[in-house]
């Protein structure tokens, strides 16, 4: 098994005829992901990637192809509506890759997404890969190895770094999930940990956090309570960040006493989770935490 995406995923790509959408749709299809449809208003009736039908609306795409998961490559101005379009059409799991969506727009979107019981990952996230089964988003497929370590991260390329480190060490992954670094996101660390706990094929966890907010602290507390025996290693980016300066992600602001790397590391260690100093330490620390591939 795995979480969020797998070989049964019927993927819809929203914005499939755009530059980003088409490039990544190609990559996903090459990885073996089952892309059943794409949408771009006004381009309905086209076929891309050899066999993928394009629809004007998500409702039509779902009706005709049974798509159950969508990934969004729509510019920030249209992305909130694209998420809601997927919700209204009955999509159950939505990945929003788009970055720079205004926070106030996301407040409304997540309220609606939650009310409708839909899973949204992102926005501003790299997506998720269940190695050997499906990849949805923009994580390079080549760095993965199938296995039983679940990875969840707020970052993009830092995720790749760690996946590569795991794969190089011969440690495979069940699913790697990038939840995105925006201040308002559909899915947080705890949500993903909850999914991993239910997955019988995930036997260890790697969590990649960063400064800002308190999602890592909450995840640490939840892990200690709900899955105390699962080996877990974490990493927090931003130890060297000067207080009060933004580091690209809106999420990475240190405000007041909370949200510092020190506070997060302390909370994780208090929950019995080892925190690596460098990504390259993670495979070794996983084994020290009791993980056996």
């Amino acid at each position: 098994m795995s979480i969020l995406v797998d070989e049964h995923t019927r993927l819809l790509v929203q914005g499939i005829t755009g530059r980003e959408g088409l490039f990544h749709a190609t990559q996903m299809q090459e990885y073996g992901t089952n892309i059943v449809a794409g949408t771009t208003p006004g381009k309905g009736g086209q076929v891309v990637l050899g066999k993928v039908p394009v629809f004007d609306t998500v409702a039509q795409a779902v009706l005709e192809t049974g798509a159950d998961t969508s990934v969004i490559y729509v510019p920030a101005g249209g992305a909130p509506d694209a998420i809601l379009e997927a919700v209204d059409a009955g999509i159950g799991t939505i990945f929003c890759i788009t970055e720079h969506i205004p926070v106030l727009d996301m407040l409304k979107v997540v309220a609606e997404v939650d009310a409708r019981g839909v899973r949204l990952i992102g926005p501003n996230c790299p997506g998720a890969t269940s190695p050997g089964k499906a990849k949805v988003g923009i994580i390079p497929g080549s760095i993965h190895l199938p296995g039983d370590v679940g990875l969840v991260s707020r970052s993009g390329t830092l995720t790749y770094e760690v996946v590569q480190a795991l794969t190089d060490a011969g440690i495979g992954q069940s699913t790697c999930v990038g939840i995105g670094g925006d201040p308002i996101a559909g899915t947080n660390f705890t949500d993903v940990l909850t999914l991993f706990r239910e997955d019988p094929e995930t036997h260890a966890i790697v969590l990649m956090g960063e400064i800002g907010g308190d999602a890592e602290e909450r995840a640490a507390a939840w892990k200690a309570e709900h899955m105390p025996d699962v080996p877990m290693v974490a990493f927090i980016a931003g130890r060297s960040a000067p207080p009060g300066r933004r580091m690209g992600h809106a999420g990475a602001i240190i405000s007041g006493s909370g949200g510092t790397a020190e506070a997060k590391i302390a909370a994780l260690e208090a929950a019995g989770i080892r925190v690596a100093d460098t990504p390259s330490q993670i495979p070794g620390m996983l084994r020290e935490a009791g993980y056996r591939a």
Partner: protein
Amino acid sequence: MKLQEYAAKELLVRAGLPVPPWSVADTPAEARSQAAAYLAAGADRVVIKAQVLVGGRGKAGGVKLAATADEAEAVAGAILGMDIKGITVRRVLVAPAADIVREYYLAAVLDRGARRIRIMGSAEGGVEIEQVAEEDPDAIVSLLAHPHLGLLDHQARQVAFAMGLGDRWKEAVPVIRGVFAAAIANDADLVEINPLAIVRSVEPDGTVSESIQALDAKVTLDDSALFRHPDLEALRDLSEEDPVDVEARGLGLSFIRLEGSIGCMVNGAGLAMATMDLVKRAGGEPANFLDIGGGAKADKVAAAMRLILSDASVQVILVNIFGGIARGDEVARGLLEARSQQTRDVPMVVRIVGTNADLAARILDESGVGIEAATSLDAAVERAVELARAAA
């Protein structure tokens, strides 16, 4: 984007909030004439406030009263040019000093955990709200606005009564709603009034009246939403910003200048922070934070490189690219372009993995330019720190 007090007050006024008059002075002479006008209009004293985007300016001596135009000029002269937590004061705000009866705290702030806008109010105003939260948490009333319906009337009333403004709740409710409205209208993560005050004023005929006034304001805007508020870009205070930061923003790069000697060019904010962390851990000091973003093209990479090199203290450049959306070959081409224009000979350690990394390696290799390649992040960091030490 953080706004200076004077810009923040402008947004409050647009939202219909009561703010006493103010003006902005860049020189002591300007401050003098503004103060003279307020004093002539009946003010007992004026307040001169340093306009800087860091907290604690009061304790640092950046806020002073003056009773005469002469005194105002002298005080402004002392504050302008002052260094407050590393920021040079280039501008002061001048306003009539308020006769404060009582101070309150009021804010609308993005609550990331709750994923709502939170309204916070307190009868303990004029001090840092973090201090109140620690010493007397019951003195803070706090509630979440509805994500769709906004701050409801009854919520505003609840805040007013809990703040102890019950006997003037009909005056307080529009102020509380106004703070929320200002946050929504401007896509602000934070709108804070501290102090909100009941101010006593005496009319020329001797009548004394009291009213609620916003005496200070902090506003932080959501950078992702600035595109729909083109007018707000004009409120940005460029004088306080590093010109390099301004240039980086123009290029769509996320760049922050720091104190060290190792220039960093990375794709992705998380990886950029992690790279800096590793530099520091290895004994080096990063000269900057730089995220070149997802689909960075060669020309953007070259521009980013010029930005880094414009800092004379940079002794070595560390490039760490994990290709995903960004393609290694594009980055490599950008590096070569930058190298060709480079006037200063700074060693470069480059690590490019992921999408088109092979191509990137070939491009750099064939160029014949002396760029050191590294395959692991740890090795790249170690080598960069080593080179920086050698150069020091």
